[in-house]
């Protein structure tokens, strides 16, 4: 029986605390945690979303360990398969998955402003959608 710990993965602006393990200087996710973090699922035929599957063989020889409820996938291999950059700190069981370039490119081609919600200085959330039907000037600034 494999022992799992909680690993923290930041993806798409959300902090996910999910079941996984730290082994061999790498962070591993339980297969059941994969959809929460990535929107993809690890199935017998491969890593799948909707009707697209990346075959298991394409994930790399050492990407998957264990079977059934004990199955885990190594996070770097998972991110590589999804063409997403990842930064991993095994000591803290913490990792960050960057946005998928393909998703960014999608919003660029369509020319749409991606939806967002950010806190104001007092922590109150403000969304782009709060100003629907108006012209918006987004102004990025900083104290530095």
């Amino acid at each position: 029986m494999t022992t799992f710990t909680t690993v923290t993965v930041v993806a798409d602006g959300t902090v996910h605390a999910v079941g996984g393990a730290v082994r061999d200087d790498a962070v591993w996710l339980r297969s059941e945690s994969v959809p929460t973090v990535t929107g993809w699922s690890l199935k017998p035929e491969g890593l799948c979303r909707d009707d697209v599957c990346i075959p298991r063989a394409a994930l790399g020889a050492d990407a998957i360990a264990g079977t059934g409820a004990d199955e885990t996938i190594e996070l770097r291999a998972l991110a590589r398969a999804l063409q997403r950059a990842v930064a991993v700190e095994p000591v803290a069981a913490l990792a960050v998955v960057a946005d998928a370039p393909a998703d960014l490119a999608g919003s660029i081609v369509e020319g749409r402003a991606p939806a967002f919600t950010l806190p104001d200085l007092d922590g109150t959330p403000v969304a782009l959608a709060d100003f629907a039907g108006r012209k918006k000037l987004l102004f990025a600034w900083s104290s530095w």
Partner: protein
Amino acid sequence: MLLAISLDEDVEAARACAREESPVPLTYPVLVDRDHAWAERYGVINVPTTIWVDEDDRIVRPPAIAPGDDKFIEFVGFSAEPHHQALRAWVRDGVAPMADTEVRARRAAPDARLQEARAERRLAMHLLRAGAADLGHAHLDRALALAPDDWTIQRGSLPVRGKDPFGQDFFDFYQRWEAAGRPGYEG
């Protein structure tokens, strides 16, 4: 509608700066993007940058450096006035600042190396916030090495590295960036 979005890690620094810039309460929202998740999604790599979004949430002018005045014109290399004029024409008369094709041409997807640098930076900030200084700075160093020309990563990291964003470290970066041909700078 103006939405001012701060890329500061330190929310109090942003608050102090907003107060200093305006003695009267601001009439527009001041938001905080500590994780740079918004900045990355919109392709913002420096400040001050504006992005124009129309009534149908289409981007009519992609991210571009847009100083409020000509105080730093020697560094910036162009005047603020054309941007102001174009902005007035768009707001008052609906004049599009550029053709749709140019909007698209300017918005290239980020390369893999920059995305890796951004992931390392975000990981570093989460570690630093949790008090894991050594681990955090190790990842921040990786981000800095991966994105030598990215202002948001290079200059934006100076405060958390205990360095002055208006001091020698900034000027060293500025000179290196200028010698490299001012990469990524679009007015």
